[in-house]
């Protein structure tokens, strides 16, 4: 009997089925916890699911590549989901158009701040050069950030992790911060969240309301494009 279980495990650990299934299970479990907590941002579903998965993979001695062979099917959907963001954007187009200048100014200021402040603080705190380079694109969505990190000589998979942490921090911190600032415009809130913390922030912004989510999606798309231009241009300063 124990031998059977061993054999089953040999099969499972070599097949993409397990990686895919545990990803979906971990997320659904995490989402349930998040809902039970009354949508407390501290119970962020990404944070809980990732923690559970890392513990499980470490405990079973499964390496990340084996896991990713299955999880890549979920990861792949990031592309079509990014394209799909055009729809809420279209729905909110009128409001976006009426706010063209604030949107452009906020984009430029926010994008520069995100890059420069991340690198500057890390440098002052004594981070290594490769860590600084990996940090530069941390505010944009995973596939874009990884591409940028690769181009400037950072570590793409480290960047992916930093991007996720940034997203969770933004999702956690944005509303309390805005409350202190007495900011009550869902469009501005959403846009700032989208600039600072990409898709995870956008997911959070959609919970505020649809307008907030649409502006977050817009910010995330624009910031992805602008950061892809700015970081290579600032590369000289970053790798000083």
């Amino acid at each position, binding site marked *: 009997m124990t031998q059977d279980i061993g054999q089953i495990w040999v099969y499972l650990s070599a097949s993409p089925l397990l990686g895919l299934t545990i*990803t979906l299970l971990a*997320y659904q479990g995490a989402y349930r916890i998040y809902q039970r907590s009354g949508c407390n941002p501290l119970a*962020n579903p*990404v944070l809980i699911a990732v923690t559970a998965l890392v513990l499980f993979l470490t405990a079973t001695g499964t390496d990340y590549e084996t896991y*990713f062979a299955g999880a890549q099917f*979920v990861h792949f*959907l*990031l*592309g*079509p989901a990014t394209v*799909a963001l*055009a*729809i809420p954007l*279209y729905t909110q187009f009128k409001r976006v158009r*009426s706010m063209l200048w604030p949107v452009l100014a906020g984009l430029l200021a*926010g994008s520069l*701040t995100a890059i420069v*402040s*991340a690198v500057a*603080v*890390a440098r002052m*705190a004594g*981070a290594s050069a490769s*860590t600084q380079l990996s*940090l530069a694109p941390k*505010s944009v969505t995973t*596939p*874009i950030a990884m591409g940028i990190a690769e*181009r400037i000589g950072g*570590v793409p*998979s*480290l960047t992916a992790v*930093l*991007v*996720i*942490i*940034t997203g969770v*921090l933004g999702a956690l*911190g944005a509303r309390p911060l805005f409350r202190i*600032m007495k900011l009550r*415009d869902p*469009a*501005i809130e959403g*846009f*700032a*969240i989208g600039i*600072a913390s990409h*898709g*995870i922030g956008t*997911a959070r912004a*959609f919970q505020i*309301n*649809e*307008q907030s989510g649409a502006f977050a999606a817009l*910010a995330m*798309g624009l910031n*992805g*494009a602008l950061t*892809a*231009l700015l970081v290579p241009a600032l590369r000289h300063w970053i790798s000083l």
Partner: protein
Amino acid sequence: MLSALTQLLIFQLSGEIVARSLALPIPGPVLGMLFLFVALILKGGPGAELQTTSQNLLMHLSLLFVPAGTGIMVHLHQVGSEWLPLLLSLIISTATTLIVTALVMKLCLPAPVRTGETR
């Protein structure tokens, strides 16, 4: 759902092809989003199927970040040895970015449309 998913993939693919053939620094999916956005304006809105499929996909946007996030297990060492600079950088930078973006937008916003209407 099938045709909507196909449409999304076609836009992603065309974004990818244009980005690569013109050597643009903008990633393919973002360009695909732009193309779809333009198409929606030309067409006057998404069909019901595309609307529903996109809504379903975006409802669980967080799920799509889980595989990449789990990659932290590969970098536990680098993250562990530089955790303080990393944490300081991420917290300070994220907060500063949120504040600067919101303030700049608020300053640029003409006074009459200052309050966001919710539907």
